[in-house]
């Protein structure tokens, strides 16, 4: 499997995702070209404890909310987390 076809990401996780992962980051591999939606898929596959949350998970790329089709590049800061509950 040539590395050029995959991107390894340390995805920041927060809230219940962090609690379920048991760490600050989830390490995943996604095929390129990758999108925000593909990162969610990869996280839920490689961390099955997150799968029940899949439909609600949000992605941020470089500290901005990312639509499903947002392309992910090497070097991007990617985060996955559940709906927000501040206030």
């Amino acid at each position: 499997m040539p590395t050029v076809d995959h991107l390894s990401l340390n995805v920041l996780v927060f809230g219940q995702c962090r609690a379920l992962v048991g760490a600050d980051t989830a390490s995943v591999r996604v095929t390129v070209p990758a999108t925000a939606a593909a990162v969610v898929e990869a996280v839920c596959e490689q961390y099955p404890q997150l799968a029940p949350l899949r439909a609600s998970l949000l992605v941020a790329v470089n500290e901005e909310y990312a639509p499903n089709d947002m392309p992910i590049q090497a070097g991007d800061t990617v985060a996955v987390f559940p709906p927000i509950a501040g206030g």
Partner: protein
Amino acid sequence: MPDTEPSDDLIALTQAPIDAPSIVRRLVRPPVGAVATFEGVVRDNLRGRRTRYLDYEAYAPMALRMLRRVAAEARAKHPDLDRLALIHRLGRLRVSETSVLVVATAPHRATAFEACRFGIDRIKTLVPIWKREYFEDGDVWVEGVRPMLDPP
């Protein structure tokens, strides 16, 4: 506690208790005639279940970026807004502690009220923060909302 932004707004995440009076004192300048303040405080119950404490967690750099965006949106909507404070507490909070403080000052009250209300409404729909609520007999992650990217 919080640093002053280039716009003179006070934007902060803090582990320390929020001292609303000192924030208000820092914001009020001579042209101001109206100060509207909102404090979110920890309630003693969630749908009847007795709350012991809450743990607040943030994606801090993104949360600060989003707080600054909320301030910019408020200024775009209310050019006569004088100053704004948007401060969110993190960590463990007990009943009646302040989790979030919004202060808006303006020459007149309509702007102060509207900017303050806008500030807390936008914080709740834009800033990546989560909370886990602990009861006598268990805990829950408080159900959140999907972000609303554009201001109403």
